[in-house]
């Protein structure tokens, strides 16, 4: 299935970084179908957009430092949160971990030489870049950047004169990028596992990439079509959603969230996979409850598709609807809770090294727990009526998407960095950066829970004086956070340029397949496809005593 790997022109088995195929230099990167190079292309583009998103977030916090105008006017502020949301959602968290680390490591983790469809894989990156450029163009064209919020609710999104159609089209194109990646991963996991790698011998990150991929394939077309319909409505005045034309604005919200709620699981599941991958390595012991963690990924993907209308508890649904969606929302929290308990139990009787990746993972568990628990609070109908569309929600989703997925991505970056580049970063600096991120993050978002409960609505350019104290704390948090981000990336970039070279295959002592190959990996990953005999995370060598265990089979 994967295309025949061409013989390199330079040496026998050069690393994928040195490999020379048909094209040289820059072209050798942007025309490469090597999943590892595509992963790096994604890494660079996704982190660039992340920094753009951070800039908008930082400016928003600055504006909110004082009531009234601080640095920009209301129209600009409204565009800021729209662009911030669109970039962070469609260009950072949704592609995020699968596009970067899924591309780079999924084939290696299952003992394959590439993904099932390498060319489609490259196409997905081009679609991503095209979507990103469209989004950027929509900022620059006359008419002005979209000011609808990332949710594009109708009828405002039909009425406003800003470049909404272009922003919608950008999201449409990005959707295809996501679908192609999903299709590729589903096929890869089904078809290209190494001999002996049965389903329950797959690393847990593979389980989570696999469940994510299904959601990408099944849910994304819905948002694609919905965005097209809005564009049609804007362009031709067809009355689908706009009540002035006889349409139904609530229908739009249903269609939007039928995708965008499952999308929340596209965002979080891969990060959960990363957590399951990293804890055993640094605790030097087997994962607790492998099957429960694997199955909970599937359960989350399934049940997560049935709870979309919990975003619409104030929209005036029937009581039957409210009842069912609230109940299902509460139930869908359980598989996530199961994961958290199993991760914590995996630390029990380990031999724990508190390296940078594990620090990020522990922060993930803490912050994701806060995000998840407040999510349960929002699932409680009467409470949601109070906190819906307040900064409580803003805090909740940043705790999940940034405190969870964002920190998960940083964990993965620090964990796989030496394997990907054959360079090591300064661990002392990376730990200081971590603490700045951790303190900054919580200072930035925790006050938003309090404000939200006290009645501070979201998407507000201005606010009542009684909320200022919380806004000030939050803005100071954003400064600490941004310093942490800059130090973290500075440290990694410095490592790329002048970091300590490493060729050790297994610097952390992991037991999944990527640690059995060269550092950095050779172009074809494995010279001979390995045969897998055991489930991952055995860690038999470092065992003190063997307890009576329930074998994972």
């Amino acid at each position: 299935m994967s295309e025949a790997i061409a013989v390199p022109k330079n040496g026998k088995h050069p690393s994928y970084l040195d490999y020379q195929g048909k094209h040289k230099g820059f072209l050798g990167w942007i025309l490469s179908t090597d999943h590892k190079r595509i992963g790096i292309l994604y890494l660079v583009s996704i982190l660039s957009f992340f920094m753009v998103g951070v800039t908008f977030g930082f400016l928003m916090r600055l504006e909110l430092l004082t009531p009234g105008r601080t640095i920009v006017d209301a129209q600009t502020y409204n565009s800021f949160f729209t662009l911030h949301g669109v970039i962070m959602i469609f260009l950072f968290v949704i592609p995020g971990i699968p596009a970067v680390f899924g591309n780079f490591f999924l084939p290696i983790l299952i003992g394959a030489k590439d993904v099932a469809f390498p060319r489609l894989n490259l196409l997905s990156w081009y679609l991503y870049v095209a979507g990103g450029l469209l989004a950027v163009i929509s900022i620059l064209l006359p008419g002005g950047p979209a000011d609808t919020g990332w949710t594009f609710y109708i009828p405002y999104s039909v009425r406003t004169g800003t470049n909404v159609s272009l922003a919608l089209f950008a999201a449409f194109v990005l959707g295809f990028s996501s679908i192609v990646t999903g299709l590729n991963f589903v096929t890869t996991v089904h078809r290209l596992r190494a001999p002996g790698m049965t389903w329950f011998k797959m690393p847990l990150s593979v389980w989570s990439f696999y469940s994510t991929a299904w959601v990408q394939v099944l849910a994304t077309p819905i948002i694609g079509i919905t965005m097209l319909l809005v564009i049609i409505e804007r362009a031709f005045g067809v009355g689908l959603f706009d009540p002035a034309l006889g349409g139904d604005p609530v229908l739009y919200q249903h269609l939007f969230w039928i995708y965008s709620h499952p999308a929340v699981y596209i965002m979080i599941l891969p990060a959960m996979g990363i957590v399951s991958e990293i804890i055993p390595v640094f605790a030097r012991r087997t994962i607790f409850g492998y099957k429960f963690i694997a199955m909970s990924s599937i359960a989350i993907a399934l049940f997560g598709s049935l709870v979309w209308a919990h975003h619409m508890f104030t929209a005036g649904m029937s009581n039957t609807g409210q009842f069912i969606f609230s109940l299902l929302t509460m139930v869908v929290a359980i598989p996530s809770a199961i994961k958290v308990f199993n991760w914590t139990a995996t630390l029990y009787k380990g031999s724990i090294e508190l390296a940078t990746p594990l620090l990020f993972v522990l922060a993930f568990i803490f912050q994701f727990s806060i995000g998840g628990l407040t999510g349960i609070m929002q699932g409680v109908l009467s409470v949601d009526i109070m906190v819906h569309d307040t900064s409580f929600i803003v805090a909740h989703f940043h705790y999940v998407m940034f405190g969870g997925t964002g920190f998960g991505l940083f964990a993965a970056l620090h964990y796989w960095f030496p394997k990907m580049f054959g360079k090591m970063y300064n661990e002392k600096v990376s730990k200081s950066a971590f603490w700045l991120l951790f303190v900054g993050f919580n200072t930035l978002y925790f006050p938003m829970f309090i404000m939200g409960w006290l009645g501070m609505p979201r998407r507000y350019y201005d606010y009542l004086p009684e909320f200022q104290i919380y806004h000030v704390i939050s803005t100071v948090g954003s400064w600490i956070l941004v310093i942490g981000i800059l130090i973290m990336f500075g440290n990694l970039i410095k490592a790329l340029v002048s970091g300590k070279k490493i060729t050790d295959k297994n610097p952390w002592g992991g037991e999944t397949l990527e640690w059995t190959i060269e550092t950095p990996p050779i172009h074809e990953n494995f010279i001979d496809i390995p045969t897998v005999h055991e489930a991952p995370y055995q860690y038999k060598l470092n065992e003190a005593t063997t307890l009576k265990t329930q074998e994972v089979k």
Partner: protein
Amino acid sequence: MFNGASNFAKEVDFAFLFTLVVSIFFLVLITGLMIYFVVKYNRKRNPKATNVHSNVFLEVTWTVIPTILVLIMFWYGWVGYVDMSEAPKDTLNIDVTAQMWKWTFKYENGKTTDSLYVPVDKPVKLNLHSLDVNHAFYIPKFRIKKDVYPNQQRMIWFEAKELGSFDIACAEYCGLNHSYMYNKVKVMPQEEFSVWLNTTVPDSTTKNDSTNKSTGK
């Protein structure tokens, strides 16, 4: 923090407090265990690990207990919500119009205002609709919120339990001045309210005399 001023406040605040306490319990439990394990089983202190694969009893316990807890939470939320969704029969009815970026309140006798005046201890029903885009009618102190749509009717009701003046905000993004769509609800003693309702103020529409009897109780 828990100073709601309507008939729903007690129920909502209780549900909030209950979920909050359970959440804090689990957060402290997980974080505490994490820190404890990291310290106790640090590689320096514990160079050899012990493999524990799984334990069915534990898995069942930490599935069943949270499930029961979330079902209890769900129930409190549902019960609180049902109260909000059904207005009692004998209410004071007011039409609320939202538009970019202001609220208008129209009483049954035709009197029209930009602030909402209501009597204390009497159920008030608001019929909500919008002239342009989506808005959401939100009184934080009363713990109530409802989206407001053009060409569609929505209903919200409450019974104010405290005299005074509280904020009305718009909670659904509606463009440029969304954050300035604030107004006040003024809760008055019942007699004072009847007097107010039946007095012609300069900005009110005419015809309040003819409908006096139906509302001025």
